[in-house]
């Protein structure tokens, strides 16, 4: 299927004078304020979407900095307290030979968040002005970002579970560091950022007459 052909065949709801309910999917005529089925507010396009995306994105990025600087875990083993940051933890794990775990932590805590920041920023930049990208690809990227967002919490879950389980007083204690909270907040912010993204915008700014 040719891209121009594809574009020619695509008619957005907005083009069709309709507005889709984002909650239940019911299509209503453009201009209707509320969904007749579920009562959700109907809006053809979220005009503040990109603003929100950028705002959450920046908040997420800011909180991601302390999440990497400050210690993620405070583990106390027999009077000896070690504090490890995310990167430090990965390095330690590599030193111990746990490459698999190191890889998981590295992917979950560094690759995914940074990839997400990049992806969201890329999408938001592209959609900020008319573009000639493959809308299907853009959409797929968006879907992936939104799907994967929650998995970034895997780190926070690990810390939370360890902190809850490993509490043997003097022998071994693990407490979450300040970075755990920062990281969790950062993940929440990036998820909100991804959610603020109005994916319908992907279809709006296609440059008319862009060569295929």
């Amino acid at each position, binding site marked *: 299927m040719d891209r121009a052909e594809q574009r020619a065949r695509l008619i957005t709801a*907005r083009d069709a004078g309709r507005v889709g309910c984002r909650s239940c999917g019911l299509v209503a005529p453009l201009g209707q304020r509320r969904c007749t089925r579920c009562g959700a507010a109907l809006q053809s396009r979220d005009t503040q979407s990109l603003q929100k995306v950028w705002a959450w994105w920046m908040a997420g990025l*800011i909180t991601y900095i302390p999440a990497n600087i400050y210690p993620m875990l405070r583990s106390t083993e027999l009077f000896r307290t070690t504090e490890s940051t995310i990167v430090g933890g990965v390095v330690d794990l590599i030193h111990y030979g746990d490459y698999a775990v190191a890889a998981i932590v590295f992917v979950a805590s560094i690759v995914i968040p940074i990839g997400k920041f990049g992806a969201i920023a890329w999408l938001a930049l592209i959609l900020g002005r008319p573009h000639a990208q493959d809308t299907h690809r853009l959409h797929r990227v968006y879907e992936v970002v939104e799907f994967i967002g929650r998995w970034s919490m895997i780190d926070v879950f690990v810390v939370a579970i360890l902190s809850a389980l490993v509490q043997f007083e003097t022998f071994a204690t693990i407490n979450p560091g300040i970075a755990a909270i920062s990281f969790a907040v950062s993940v929440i912010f990036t998820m909100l950022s991804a959610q603020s993204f109005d994916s319908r915008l992907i279809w709006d700014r296609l440059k008319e007459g862009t060569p295929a």
Partner: protein
Amino acid sequence: MMTDADLPTPEPTESRREISWVWLMPVLAVLVALGMVWQTYANRGPVIVVTFPSASGIEAEQTPLRYRELDVGTVEEVTFSEGLSAIEVHIRLDQKIAPYVDAGSEFWLVEPQVSARGITGLGTVLSGVYIEGSWDGTPGEAADRFEALTEQPLFSPDQAGTRIVLSSRTGGQLSAGAPVLFNGISVGWIGRPVLSENGLTVTRDAFIEAPYDARLSTASRFWDSSGLSFDIGTNGVSFNMESLAALVEGGVTFGTLVTGGQAIEPGHVFDVFSSLRTARADALEGSGTRLSVAALVDASVAGLSAGTVVRYGRANVGEVTAVTGFRDADAPSGDMQLLVDLEIIPERLGFAAGLTTDEQLATLADRIAAGLRLRLASEGIIGQTTILEFIQAEDAGAETLVIDRTPFPLVPTAPARVGDATEGMEGLVDRVSNLPIEELMTSAIGALESVQQLAGSPDALQLPANANGLISDARGLVGSDEIRIALADFQAATTDLRAMTDEIRNSPGLANLLTALESSQQITDGLAAFSEGLPGVLDSVAVITDEIREVPLAELVGSLDQVTQQLQGFLGSESIDDLPEAIRGTLEELQNALTELRTGGAVENLNKALAAAQGSMEAIEIATELVPEVVSRLDSTARTLETAVSGYAPGSRIQVDITNALRNISEAAAAFRSLSRTLERDPSSLITGR
């Protein structure tokens, strides 16, 4: 089907340029982050640098600084100092504690330590070392560079108690951290031993905790209570052990053995004695300051070692602290000599108390100029011990105190008085025989002789004989039990005295003295018994005299007269003429005799007898007076030495000599007694020597 035309015209998208509230979130995040950064920096305390000789386990960002076991800072960085001579540890202090870390602060590394008293710093085995800080509770002059202590200080500045210094001859068993005990309670601890500059004594700081430090005074004595003490004495075997820690690590006990101590200043120096016994001896004799001197003796001398006694006369005045070889570079022969270091107590040499060391040395130099010398001597009754003694040499040369040739002033020596066992024995016997036994015996003999003379005087002997014929019942009185007992006692006393005299004459020596002394006792007893009997004798004699007086002499004379007159009448009668001339002569002789008798012969004889009795009475009275005198003379002779002692000023050398002589005699006597007992029991000991 709707067509495009049916669709409502899309409303133009209103491009509202209003700002979303979501922007608050990044602003908030920035604010929070800035707030955190600000707080971190605002709460950061200053960095101090502590210099350690080695890093030994200190890790950056890891090793904490602790004060009273609480983290008050963390090591930020560990670097080398300039020239790589030390490790500089940069410590970030907590802001709240920073003002207190002033110039007087001390830092040291806490590492695990295993000692007899227990294991300390066990936590650091797993957690790693930490740096402990110590400072007082008042902010002072700020400082940021410190030198770490090599070990934990003895006490922290805010700990209540008193720091003292313990000085002893050797490091001994006392290791750092050993307890200081008082009445068995641990009241403090001692620090690491430090060798003094001259290398002869070991000093340690010790800390006595409050309130026990109130027990410290200048009269306190410290002694080593380490390990086991094992005493065999007259009370049997005593076995003593302080705490187990004291056994392994050593311990010092202190006590106040004499009263009258004054309060001490912190840092007061106490000597540590080797045992309670020596400490008590010191406390009782009074130690005074010690003066270190030295002497050079021939290298061939055996038996000199640290601890050898130094005597002056019979008094201990100090002891040898060290014996080292000494080769004088200037001496031509280059022979090795022994350099003997001594510690003496100048007061016991008769020096005035309270002199400074210089003054003591000056006094010593004066005494040496006056002939004071040090010499080797041997002493002991059977076993020989080498000692050093100060003597007043008669023919002393011109040697002087040599100050700067050896570490301590050098006292000139006199030829040694080292003899073998026989000489020692002879010396003892000499000393015994030099005692004024002769005088004692002479006076005793004199007294006894006068008693003998009295008892054996013809008057006394004739008294009963004279009186016998005249008064028969006087015999009964004379032979009464009292007199017999008295006389028997007297006889026994005389015999004892004689035996004693003989024994003393026949066998000079100590055994004689003993016997003599015992006999003297018996004499005294006998004399005492005699004196008790005397009143009885006197009474009896008085009765005799009375009875003699009551004899009807007048009647006797009268009867004699009558006889005479009758005889005269008879002789003068006519019939007498018839008698032959012979008879007449005889009668005339009889008459003469009677006349003689009448004119006083018999009476005079009687008078004489009575006078003799009177004389013997007086003699006995004199004797009675003599008896106490004899006793007192015996007493006084026995106490000659004592009187001699009291005759001299206290503390004088002669008194010390005599006291020692007396002590030696009694010791010698005891030794002899036990020796003889031993020999009695086990004659083979003579051969085996045990």
